[in-house]
C-alpha cells in the first residue's frame, strides 16, 4: 500500500469542501457523506454469461464525522434491474490472518442518487469510527447484461457480445484511487472504449488508475468480445418439494429453458453438427476427421448437481420421456447429465421436467422447540444457469400446521393448499418466489412446521376401510335376496 501522496491529500481537502457545500445544499446532511473511498478495485469477470463483479473498497471515515453504521453502493437503473445478488464482507486482520465477516446488504431507502441511480447499503456490524479505515469486499452478479451483437448468427459463426459499464466506479462517495479490470474468456476482443489510461493484456482489459473521482461520476465504456459459453437461461423454474413422513422427499422441477445468446439464423445444418451422435452405426472415419467446428455457442447437454442418495430420477417433457440422460452418483453428490431432445441454438426454447426422490432422514430434522424442519437448498441445481423466475413449493404433509420459511434473502412468500393422492383436507404448501437467481443463491434454507404423526395413519386407514367395506358389501349382497317376486 502506498502512502497517500500530497496531491491526494490536497484533493481530499478539496473534496471535503465540496462535500460540505453539498451537505449545505441538501438538507438534512447525511452522515455517510463523511465517508470516502481511499482505493477501489473493480474486477469484472465476463467469462460466463453471468457478469460477476468483485469490488474491493477501502473506505475511511472522516475524523470529524460521527460513527457511520452503513456504507452505500450505487447502481445504475439497468444494473438494478439485472442485479441478481449483492454480497459484502468485511476483511479484518492482516494478510495471512485475514478473516472475512459477512455483512448484510439491503436496498437503501435513501433518496435516489442522480440519474436514477439506486443505492444499496452495507450494514456494518461494528460502526466505522471517525478516522477509521476499513476494507470491504463486495461481490455482485448481473444477469442478462451481455447483449449479443450481431444479434443473429449462423451456425458456424462465433458469438460476439457487448458489455456496457463505467470505467470509473459509480459511487456516492469520493473515490481517491480506482482501477477496473475486465476479464474476457478469450483473446478475441473486437473493440473496447478507451478511457485513458487503458491497457489490454491478453484477455484482460485494464481501466485506470483514475484518481480523485467526484461522487456519482460515470464514464460509459463498451466492450465487444467473443463469448461462446452457452447462454443457458431458465426462464421459469418451478420446484416442488413433497414431503412424506413415510420416508421420502419427492422433488419435481419444471424447467423452461432458453438459449439466451445470439439468435440462430438460417440453416441448421445437420451434417456438420450431427454425425457425431450416431457414430455407433455410422462410419466414424468421416466425422472424426472433421472436427465439430460449428455450432460453438450451442449446447447439447446440461449438468444438474443433485443431492447424494438420490433415487428414481426421471427426465421427461410434455410428450414423454427423453431417453438421453446419465446419472453419476457418489457419497457426496449426484450428477445428472441431461441432453435436451435437440441441441439448443440461440433463441431456441425447450421445456422439460426432472423428478427425483430423496431419503427423508437426510433432510428432515427436529428443532429444539419440538417443531420439525426440512433443510433444503435454494436455487437451481443446473450449473451455470440464470433463473429468471424461480418458484419453490414446499408441500408439507397433510395435517401439518404453522409453517414458517427461513430464507436468507428477501422474496415473495405465501401459502396455498395442494391436493395429491387420497387427500381430504389438502396439504399446506409454502410457496417461495424469487426473480433473477444465479448459482450464488444455492444456499440452504429451512421450512419449519408442526406435524402430528397420527396423520400418517390416515391414508392407510382409509384404504383399509374401503377394502373392508367392499368385502362387507359383497358378503351382504351374497346373503341378501333382492328379487321382487317370491322365490
Amino acid at each position, binding site marked *: 500500500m502506498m502512502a497517500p501522496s500530497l496531491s491526494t491529500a490536497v484533493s481530499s481537502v478539496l473534496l471535503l469542501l465540496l462535500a460540505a457545500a453539498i451537505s449545505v445544499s441538501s438538507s438534512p446532511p447525511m452522515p455517510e457523506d463523511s465517508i470516502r473511498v481511499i482505493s477501489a478495485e473493480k474486477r469484472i469477470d465476463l467469462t460466463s454469461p453471468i457478469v460477476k463483479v468483485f469490488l474491493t473498497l477501502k473506505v475511511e471515515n472522516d475524523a470529524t464525522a460521527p460513527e457511520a453504521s452503513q456504507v452505500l453502493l450505487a447502481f445504475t437503473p439497468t444494473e438494478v434491474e439485472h442485479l441478481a445478488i449483492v454480497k459484502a464482507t468485511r476483511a479484518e486482520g492482516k494478510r495471512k490472518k485475514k478473516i472475512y465477516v459477512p455483512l448484510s446488504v439491503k436496498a437503501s431507502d435513501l433518496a435516489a442518487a442522480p440519474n436514477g441511480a439506486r443505492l444499496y447499503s452495507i450494514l456494518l456490524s461494528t460502526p466505522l469510527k471517525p478516522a477509521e479505515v476499513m476494507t470491504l469486499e463486495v461481490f455482485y452478479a448481473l444477469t442478462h447484461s451481455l447483449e449479443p451483437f450481431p444479434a443473429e448468427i449462423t451456425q458456424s459463426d462465433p458469438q460476439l457480445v457487448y458489455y456496457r459499464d463505467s470505467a470509473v466506479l459509480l459511487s456516492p462517495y469520493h473515490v481517491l484511487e480506482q482501477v477496473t479490470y475486465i476479464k474476457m474468456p478469450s483473446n478475441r476482443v473486437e473493440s473496447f472504449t478507451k478511457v485513458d489510461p487503458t491497457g489490454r493484456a491478453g484477455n484482460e482489459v485494464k481501466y485506470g488508475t483514475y484518481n480523485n473521482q467526484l461522487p456519482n461520476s460515470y464514464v460509459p465504456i463498451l466492450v465487444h468480445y467473443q463469448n461462446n459459453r452457452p447462454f443457458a437461461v431458465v426462464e421459469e423454474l418451478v420446484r416442488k418439494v413433497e414431503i412424506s413422513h413415510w420416508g421420502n422427499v419427492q422433488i419435481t422441477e419444471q424447467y423452461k429453458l432458453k438459449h439466451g445468446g445470439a439468435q440462430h439464423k438460417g440453416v441448421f445444418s445437420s*451434417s456438420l453438427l450431427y454425425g457425431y451422435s450416431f457414430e455407433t*452405426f455410422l*462410419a466414424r472415419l*468421416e466425422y472424426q476427421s472433421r472436427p465439430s467446428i460449428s455450432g460453438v455457442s450451442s449446447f447439447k447437454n446440461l449438468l444438474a448437481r443433485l443431492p447424494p442418495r438420490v433415487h428414481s430420477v426421471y427426465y*421427461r417433457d410434455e410428450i414423454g420421456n427423453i431417453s438421453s440422460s446419465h446419472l453419476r452418483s457418489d457419497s457426496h453428490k449426484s450428477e445428472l447429465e441431461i441432453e435436451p431432445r435437440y441441441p439448443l441454438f440461440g433463441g431456441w426454447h425447450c421445456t422439460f421436467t426432472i423428478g427425483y426422490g430423496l431419503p427423508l432422514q437426510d433432510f428432515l430434522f427436529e428443532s429444539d422447540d419440538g417443531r420439525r424442519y426440512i433443510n433444503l437448498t435454494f436455487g437451481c441445481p443446473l450449473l451455470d444457469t440464470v433463473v429468471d423466475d424461480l418458484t419453490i413449493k414446499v408441500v408439507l404433509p397433510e395435517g401439518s400446521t404453522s409453517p414458517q420459511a427461513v430464507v436468507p434473502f428477501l422474496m415473495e412468500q405465501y401459502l396455498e393448499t395442494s391436493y395429491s393422492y387420497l387427500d381430504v383436507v389438502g396439504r399446506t404448501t409454502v410457496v417461495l418466489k424469487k426473480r433473477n437467481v444465479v448459482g450464488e443463491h444455492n444456499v440452504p434454507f429451512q421450512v419449519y412446521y408442526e406435524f402430528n404423526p397420527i396423520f400418517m395413519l390416515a391414508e392407510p386407514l382409509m384404504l383399509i376401510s374401503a377394502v373392508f367395506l367392499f368385502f362387507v358389501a359383497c358378503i351382504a349382497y351374497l346373503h341378501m335376496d333382492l328379487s321382487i317376486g317370491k322365490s
Partner: protein
Amino acid sequence: MAAATALDSLPAPLRSLRLKTKQQELLLRVSALALIYVLAFVVRLFSVLRYESMIHEFDPYFNYRTTLFLSDHGFSEFWNWFDFESWYPLGRVVGGTLFPGLMVTAALLHRLLRALSLAVHIREVCVLTAPFFAANTTLVAYAFGREIWDSGAGLVAAALIAVCPGYISRSVAGSYDNEGVAIFALLLTFYLFVRAVNTGSLAWSLASAFGYFYMVSAWGGYVFIINLLPLYVLVLLVTGRYSQRLYVAYNSTYVLGMLLAMQIRFVGFQHVQSGEHMAAMGVFFLLQVFFFLDWVKYLLNDAKLFKSFLRITLTCVITVGTLALGIGTASGYISPWTGRFYSLLDPTYAKDHIPIIASVSEHQPTAWSSFMFDFHILLFLFPAGLYFCFKRLSDATIFIVMYGLTSMYFAGVMVRLILVAAPAVCLISAIAASATIKNLTTLIRTKSKSPQTVSGKSSGSKAAAKGAVDQSLPFQQNVAIALLLGAFYLLSRYAVHCTWVTSEAYSSPSIVLAARGHNGGRVIFDDYREAYYWLRQNTPSDAKIMSWWDYGYQITAMGNRTVIVDNNTWNNTHIATVGRAMSSYEDEAYEIMQSLDVNYVLVVFGGVTGYSSDDINKFLWMVRIGGGVFPVIKEPDYLVNGEYRVDKGAAPKMLNCLMYKLCYYRFGELTTEYGKPPGYDRVRGVEIGNKDIKLEYLEEAFTTSNWIVRIYKVKPPKNRS
C-alpha cells in the same frame, strides 16, 4: 384332501367354515375369473415396461388430443369444437366428425379417479383405457360363453380372449384407439341381445340397446352390429325359430338403439337415411308383418282364407317396400352404400376405386400367415367349435355361428378386422375346448369309478358294470388321458405363443424405434418426438406444417402446430394437393405451398438408419393419390420401365421432385456405411442418383439426430424487382 382332513380335526365352530361343493365351485370360478381379469390387463403392459407410459401409433394421438380438450374444456365445448389446427385452411368440425365414446369414457374415468382423490394424469388414464376394457371384455366373454354353452365354456372363452393376439394387437397399453373400447361394447351388445332373445325380457333388450348406443358412440364398426342382428333375425325366421322373445328383443333393441344412436352427431340420421342401415329397418318391418300375419292367422283360423290373405298382404308389402326404397334412393333421401362398405364386401374394390384406403397397410387383404399369427390354435378349434354348435343348435348358438362366420369373412378382406373376428373365434373355440375336455374328463371319471363300484359291491349291480365295460373301447381311459394331455399341451402352446407375439410384435409404440447396435446394446431412435418437440418449441405458434397425412395427427398432438392434412382422410382433394406438391418440381411446389400458406415442410427419411416406412417408400402412393385428382401428375413419369428406383437410373422427374430433394438434401455428403460410397441409401440399398441438390425456395430448418425427420422452412417470396 389334506386340507379337508385338517379341517375335520378342527373344533366345531371352525368346521362350519368348510365349503360346500357348490361354494367351492363358486370360489374356484370367481378366483379363476379374477386371475383372468388381471392377466388380461397385465399382459398388455409390455410396452409400458419396455418403453414408457406413452400413446402409440398415429390415430391414438388424435384421440389423446381430443380427450385432453374434453377434460380441459368440458363436454359442451368439445361437442362444438371447430379445430383450426388441422386441414388448414378448411379446418375440421371435430365434434361432428368423431366417435366420442372413447374420449368421454377416458375423461369420465379420469374424473372418477380424481373424485377418489387419486391424482393421476389424464395420459395415464388414456394409456390404460384399452387394457382396462380388454380386461372387462373377458368378463363379458365369460357371461356370453355361459349364455350360449355353459360356465365352463365361458371360463375358457374368457381365458382365450384375455391373451388372443388378434385382440391384443389393438388393445395394448398406449394403443388408445376406438377399437380398445369398441370390442368390449360389441361383445357386450351381442351378449345382451342374445340374453334378450333367450329370455324375451324387456330389461335385457333395453340393456342391449344401451350397449348398442355405447358401441355407436365408440366406433364406426357398429355397422357390423346393425347388419348382423337383422341377418340373424332373418335366419331365425327362415329356420322357423320365430318366437315372441325374438320379437320383443329385436324390436325394442332396434327402435331404442336407433333413437339413441341418432344422438351421436357423426352418425346422425344415417339409421333411416343410409343404405347400409336399411337391412335393419327392412327386417324391422318384416317382423311387424310377420307378427301381423300370425295374429290374422290366429283370428281367421282358416287355412284357405289365410293363404289368400297372405298372398295379398305379401304383394302389398313387397310393392310398398320396393317403392319406398326406390323412391328413397332415387330422390337421394337414402344414400347409396359408401365406398368403404363396398370395399368390405369386395376385397378388390378399394384397389381400383379408392387408393387412399388401399394405401393403408391395415386395409390390405389378410395373409394366411397373419391368421395363424393372430389365432394360433384357435384356427383349428374354430371348426370344431362350429361342429359342437351345430350339434346343439339353439338361438344362442345360431347367433355365435353367424357372428363367427361373417366376421371371419371380413377378417379375410381386411387385416384390421381380425379384431372383430377375435371374440367370436375365441368363443367358438372355447366351446370346442370346453366340450372336448369335459367329454374326456367324464370318460376318465366313469372309468375310474366303475372298477371301484365293481370291487366294492362284488355282485351288486353286475348289469350296470357290464354295460359300462361293453360301452367302452379298449384303452379308452389311456387314450382319454393322452388326449387330455394333448389338449393341455396345445393350450399351453397357445399361451406361450400369445405372450411371445404380444411381447415381440404388438408392444412397440412405433413412435420410438428400437434397434440393436453393433455391440448388442439397444439403440433408441427417438427422432419423431425430437422433431415434433422442436416444432412445438421453436416455430411460431401459427406455423403451418405440410407433411404426408400419416404424420398429421402426431404433429398436431405433439407439435401443437397446424397441419394441412391428417389421418382423418375426409377430403381427398386436399390430400391430393399435398401429394401433388410433393411430386412436383420445386418451383411448382412452391406455388402450391404458397397458396396453402405453408411455413414448414416435414419429411420422414430412413436412408441413414434403414427405417423402411419412410416417405420415399410411400412416395408412389402420393403420386397415385395426387394423380387421381390432378392428371398433371402421371405415375409413369416417376418410373423407369415400370420400376421404382432412386439411383442414377431413376426417372429425371423422380430425381428432381420436391420429395426427392427434401429427403436427399446434403445426403450425398454423408457416408452411411463402411465400404459404400457417400450417399448410400440403406433402405433402398443403392447410391442415390442426385447428390448435388440445391434448394431454391426452401431451406433446411431442422434435421433430427438420425435424420429420420427432416424439416424445411419455406422461404418468404422474393421482393419484386
